[in-house]
């Protein structure tokens, strides 16, 4: 469910409109372009490392390309941050037209001026020009419809002959502001209802211009967790009747995974966020000694891998990088939710939220706020008062797929794809997932959290799952 360190790199550098990224190599010379700046910022996490990696990684990098599963990184932290080397990636042509669209979900929603750019939900489509199945893709924690993994899935499915709709995660600011009924993401039933509402609206629109034969559903990371609950809700409501559902690297329990990720954060930051600047300063020093920033292009996976080989960050640093990227997503979520519900949690209740409002102090607080704090302080408060008779323990238990385990294990159309070394799973989580899905689970031996999505064998599995 956590977005990966690599997601962070891409998340911060990703062009908002597909098609303009091709010339990213050519930097705007006269001053540092903001995209480049963000790329550098993002790579600081990666570059902060110390020495101490085994030389085994080097040998692994030279693995011969064959169309079997030969993903090279056995270190799950490195896999999560680095992704897949270009030579081993599925060949996904760039020519598919990714169209960004906007949707007004609630006609009467009032959005504070500070969120003026979030007044409508943004989603993306990749359409066929003939009748085809439609696949919905739900993004992972804090990720948008055009996050790197979301787009990758879109291209895989589009190439396999489907119409594809890419949706942001219900934990993404844009979704919280424009499409969440409760504005408090994280509750499975409420998030599924929000997603289902959006899907119905999108479907209604698309049906005017394309013909759809049937429906599929998938999601990665937290989006996979959302997909499970959405499929269940859909069955209860009698909606799309998703013929196939694929859960890609889901958390078993939101609660477990948040604890895992919080623990990652402090591995390279013993003093917590207080040590963040020192961590980053050290990274800056390493980067400066590494060479000119002009040589850095973190949109190129091979380049990131090259930087990794030279800088050799420790596992602790990598874990912290992943934890930080997740913490940043959490800070965005908690703050957006706080402002939209007027909870007075981090942002003063009576202060107008404007684009000119300085937010430095609130950022400093939000970065020190775990999703567990959010859960305890505003989420539980709100949901407990809405459903008398349930306890905090009940609420926590509901964030586990085990709570719908009986249903999941019965549903032949819902499959699981994950990695044996996925870093967001706590001890015992994988076994429980395997118990729930039985023969409907495909577990790759390595890849960390989402590190292998672009690998040829993995992309082929996803593609085959929906087209067989």
């Amino acid at each position, binding site marked *: 469910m956590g977005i990966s360190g690599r997601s962070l790199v891409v998340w*911060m550098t990703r062009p908002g409109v597909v098609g303009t990224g091709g010339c990213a190599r050519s*930097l705007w010379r006269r001053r540092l372009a903001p995209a480049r700046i963000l790329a550098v910022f993002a790579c600081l996490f990666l570059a902060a490392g110390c020495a101490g990696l085994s030389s085994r990684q080097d040998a692994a990098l030279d693995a011969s390309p064959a169309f079997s599963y030969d993903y090279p990184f056995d270190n799950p932290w490195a896999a999560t941050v680095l992704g897949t080397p270009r030579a081993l990636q599925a060949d996904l042509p760039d020519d598919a037209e990714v169209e960004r669209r906007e949707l007004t979900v609630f006609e009467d929603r009032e959005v504070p001026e500070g969120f003026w750019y979030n007044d409508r939900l943004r989603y993306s489509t990749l359409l066929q020009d003939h009748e085809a199945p439609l696949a919905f893709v739900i993004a992972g924690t804090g990720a948008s419809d055009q996050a790197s993994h979301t787009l990758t899935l879109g291209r895989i499915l589009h190439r396999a002959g489907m119409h594809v709709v890419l949706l942001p995660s219900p934990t993404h600011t844009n979704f919280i502001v424009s499409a969440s009924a409760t504005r408090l993401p994280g509750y499975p039933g409420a998030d599924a209802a929000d997603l289902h509402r959006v899907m119905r609206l999108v479907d209604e629109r698309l049906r005017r211009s394309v013909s759809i034969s049937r429906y599929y559903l998938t999601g990665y990371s937290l989006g996979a967790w959302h997909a499970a609950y959405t499929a269940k809700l859909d069955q209860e409501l009698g909606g799309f009747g998703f013929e196939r559902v694929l859960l890609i690297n889901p958390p078993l329990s939101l609660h477990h995974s948040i604890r895992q990720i919080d623990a990652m954060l402090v591995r390279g930051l013993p003093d917590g966020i*207080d040590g963040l600047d020192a961590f980053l300063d050290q990274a800056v020093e390493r980067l400066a000694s590494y060479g000119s920033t002009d040589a850095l292009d973190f949109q190129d996976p091979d380049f990131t891998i090259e930087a990794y080989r030279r800088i050799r960050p420790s596992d602790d640093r990598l874990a912290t990088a992943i934890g930080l990227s997740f913490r940043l997503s959490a800070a965005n979520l908690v703050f957006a939710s706080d402002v939209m519900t007027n909870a007075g949690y981090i942002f003063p209740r009576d202060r107008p939220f404007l684009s000119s409002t300085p937010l430095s102090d609130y950022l400093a607080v939000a970065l020190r706020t775990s999703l567990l704090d959010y859960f305890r302080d505003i989420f539980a408060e709100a949901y407990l008062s809405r459903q008398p008779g349930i306890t905090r323990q009940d609420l926590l238990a509901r964030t586990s797929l085990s709570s719908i385990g009986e249903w999941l294990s019965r549903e032949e159309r819902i499959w699981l794809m994950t990695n044996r070394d996925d870093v967001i799973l706590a001890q015992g989580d994988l076994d429980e997932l395997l118990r729930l899905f039985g023969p409907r689970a495909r577990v790759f031996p390595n890849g960390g959290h989402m590190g292998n999505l672009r690998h040829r064998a993995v992309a082929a599995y996803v593609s085959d799952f929906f087209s067989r």
Partner: protein
Amino acid sequence: MRRRSVTCLPLILVLATGGCASSVGTVRYEPPSRSLDTVSAQAEEAREVLHVSDPLEGANRRIYKFNAQLDRYVLLPVVDAYEEVVPGFLRRRVSSFFLNLGEINIFANSVLQARPSKATPTLGRFLINSTAGLFGLFDVATGLGFPRQSADFGQTLGTWGLDTGPYLVLPALGPSNLRDAVGTVVDWVAFAFVVPDSVADNLVYETVRYSLQPVDARYRVPFRYYSTGSPFEYELVRYASVVARRIQVGVPPTVRE
């Protein structure tokens, strides 16, 4: 040409005064339940994480929003149309052409920084790309092992120890600081002096420089406002741009006590 550069100066003054007017504010709000005092024993130090001094924040934030709107309603539609009409191959030639012209400033600043390691390859690049690369339409030099260097007058001033001054968000241009804003103006003026009058007064040249170049410049930058999805994007961009520029200028980071 020169009148163009001069228009930037009032801009900086507007920025400076705009900031003063908006930074006054003594309204007290009901404190939120989670504040710096509740999350850290040392609230003052806790505040410093990812923090950058920004005395003109009020004005900067307004210009940030203005830039986002300029992007949304003017620049990006133009860039989209440009991509629609002009094939990728030609767009890359346009980019190469303007980047090649930019080598003039890179060379001048490399010399001013007394860095032959940057000046020599830049001179080589300009000569190769202007001839073998057909007036810069093709970047042959990079393939021959001469990657493009980075140098501008703001960087030159920084190299010689001049402090950045306050953080600034420049209209249309984005994150900068007082030193680099001045550097941008100086680079513009210097470039105008270098181009011979016979070329500068040419209608085709003027049209290309003031219409095609800005489009190309925006086209080359993949950044999209608010694509980070973070309510703290202004703060994150500010921190990242300051750090990135610090690396680019080559000034070692100041380690906080």
